[in-house]
C-alpha cells in the first residue's frame, strides 16, 4: 500500500517537473538554480502556473465527469456530452456582451448559471429516453450541446466575437500566466466539496428508489452535484477552454480497477485525471516543437480512440 502511494507520488512529481522544464523559453535546472533572474521569471510567471493549471483542470474535469455519470445514471456522459460545456461557453459570451466591464469572476458566475440550466434541460430530456439504450444518452447530450453551441456561434458572429468564442471552445494551456489562472484553485475546493458528499453521490448513482430507501434527499443531492459540475465547468471554460473526454475516459478507466464507491475512487480519479492531462499537455508542447498543439486536440484524438474502445468493449452493465 505504502509502495503504491510512493510510486504514485514519484510519477506525478516526475511529470510535474518535466512540465516545468518543457517549453520554448530557455529554462534549465542548472540555470534556474544559479538564480538567473530571467529564468526565475519564466518559472514563476509561466511554467509553474501552467503546470498547476494542467493538474487542477485534469483532476477537476475527471471528478465532474464521474459526478455527472452518477447524476444521469449513465457511464457515457460528462460535461461535453451533456450540453454543460457549451452552455458555459454561451454564458461567458452573453456575459461578455451584456456586461463587458465585469470581472472574470462575475462572468464565471453567469456561465455557472447557464451551465446549470443546460444540464438541467439535459436531465429533463433524459426522462423521456428509453432506458434500454444507454448510448442514446450521450448522443442526445452531444446534439443538445451542438444546438447550444450553434446559438453561441451565431451570437458571437453577430457581435464579432468569434475569436473569443474559439478560445473558450478549444482548451489550451499556452495562454496560462500568473494572474490569469488562480480561479482554477476554486475547482480544488469544489473537488473537496464533492469528496465530502462522496457516499451520497454513490447512493444516488444506485437509483432513486435505493436513495429514498436510505433516507437521502435525492433532489437535493442531485442539485448539489449539478452545482459542483456547473461551477467547475464554468471556471475551466473561462480560464482554459473546453477539454473533451477527460471526464469520460478517466472515471471509466479507474472504475475497472477500484469500482464505483466514490469514497475510494474519487481521489484516484482526480490523481489519474491530473497525470494524464499533464502527459497530454507535455506531448502537445513537444510534437511540433517549438510550436504547440492545443491540449484539447491531443485529448480529443486520444480520448475519442479510448471512447470507441470503451464502447466496443462494453459489457451488458452500462
Amino acid at each position: 500500500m505504502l509502495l503504491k502511494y510512493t510510486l504514485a507520488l514519484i510519477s506525478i512529481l516526475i511529470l510535474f517537473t518535466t512540465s516545468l522544464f518543457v517549453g520554448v523559453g530557455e529554462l534549465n535546472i542548472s540555470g534556474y538554480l544559479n538564480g538567473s533572474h530571467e529564468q526565475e521569471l519564466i518559472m514563476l510567471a509561466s511554467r509553474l502556473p501552467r503546470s498547476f493549471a494542467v493538474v487542477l483542470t485534469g483532476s477537476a474535469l475527471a471528478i465532474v465527469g464521474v459526478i455527472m455519470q452518477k447524476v444521469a445514471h449513465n457511464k457515457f456522459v460528462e460535461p461535453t456530452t451533456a450540453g454543460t460545456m457549451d452552455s458555459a461557453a454561451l454564458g461567458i459570451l452573453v456575459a461578455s456582451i451584456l456586461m463587458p466591464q465585469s470581472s472574470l469572476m462575475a462572468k464565471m458566475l453567469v456561465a455557472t448559471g447557464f451551465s446549470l440550466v443546460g444540464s438541467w434541460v439535459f436531465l429533463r430530456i433524459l426522462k423521456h429516453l428509453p432506458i434500454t439504450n444507454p448510448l442514446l444518452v450521450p448522443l442526445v447530450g452531444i446534439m443538445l450541446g451542438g444546438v447550444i453551441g450553434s446559438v453561441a456561434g451565431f451570437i458571437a458572429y453577430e457581435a464579432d466575437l468569434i475569436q473569443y468564442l474559439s478560445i473558450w471552445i478549444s482548451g489550451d494551456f499556452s495562454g496560462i500566466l500568473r494572474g490569469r489562472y488562480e480561479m482554477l484553485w476554486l475547482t480544488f475546493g469544489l473537488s473537496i466539496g464533492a469528496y465530502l458528499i462522496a457516499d451520497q453521490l454513490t447512493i444516488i448513482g444506485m437509483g432513486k428508489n435505493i436513495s429514498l430507501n436510505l433516507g437521502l434527499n435525492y433532489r437535493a443531492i442531485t442539485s448539489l452535484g449539478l452545482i459542483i459540475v456547473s461551477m467547475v465547468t464554468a471556471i475551466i471554460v473561462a480560464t482554459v477552454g473546453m477539454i473533451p473526454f477527460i471526464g469520460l475516459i478517466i472515471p471509466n478507466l479507474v472504475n475497472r480497477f477500484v469500482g464505483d464507491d466514490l469514497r475510494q475512487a474519487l481521489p484516484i480519479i482526480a490523481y489519474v485525471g491530473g497525470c494524464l492531462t499533464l502527459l497530454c499537455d507535455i506531448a502537445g508542447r513537444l510534437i511540433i516543437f517549438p510550436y504547440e498543439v492545443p491540449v484539447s486536440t491531443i485529448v480529443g484524438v486520444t480520448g475519442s480512440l479510448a471512447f470507441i474502445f470503451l464502447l466496443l468493449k462494453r459489457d451488458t452493465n452500462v
Partner: protein
Amino acid sequence: MIEIKNLSKSLGNKQVLKDIAFNLPKGGISSIIGPNGAGKSTLLCLMARLLSLDSGSVAFDGLDIAKTRDDTLAKKISILTQSNAISSRLSVEQLVMFGRFPHHRGRPRLADEEFVTIMLELMELTDIRFDFIDELSGGQQQRAFIAMILAQDTDYILLDEPLNNLDMKHARNIMKTLKDVADNMNKTIILVIHDINFAAHYSDYFIGLKQGEIIVRGDVDTVLTQSQIKLIYDIDVSINIINNKKHIFYYS
C-alpha cells in the same frame, strides 16, 4: 403497528388502488398476494414513500410517512423493489455497508462493520464479499440486495418479490432466514410474493388484492381456501395438507 387509512392511487388515467384500509400488528411475516396488475407493488411502494399518496395515510408505530423526515423513516422502514438493474460497480461488501448509511451517515464505525459481516454470513455471501456486484449472477445480486436491506436494521422490512432469480436452495434459505429474523429479532416483514406455497409455508398473515382492492385478509385458514383463491386468481386449485402445512396444487 402499521395503520393504513383510505389509501388511493392513480397512475396515469388508471386507478391502481381504491380505498385501501387495514392495520397490521407488529411482528411476523405478511404476504400480499394477487394476480398481475392487482396493485401489489404499488401498495408496497406507497407504504415505503417511494410513490406519493393521492389520498389517505400510512403510519408506522404512529409515524405518519408524509410528515416524518426521510432519514428518520430510513431507520424505521426499508424496502427492496423488484428491479434493481444497477449500473454501479460496487463490491458486495460495499453495497451491504450502504445499508448502514442511515445509521452511520458516511462514517462507518466498528459496529457497522460487524453488522455487515453478520449479514454477509446470513445471506451466504462471505465468500464473494469482495466481488463486484455487476459481475455476479442474478441470484447472487438478489441476495446481496437483501443483505443490504437487512443491514439497514429497520423494524419494518418491505420486500417486493424477494425470491426473484433464486434457485430452490437459496429461495428456501432466504425464507427461513426471513422467518428467523421476524421471530427472533422482532421485525415485521411484508412481502409481495407470487409463489403461493412459499407464502403458505412461511407467512403469518395474508392480504389478497385484486384490481386495486383488498378482497380478503387474515391468517392462512381464512385466506388460503379453495373459494378465496378462486375469488382472487380465478382458478380452481386443490389444497392438500403436507407436514401440517397447506400445499396449494395449481399446476393442472
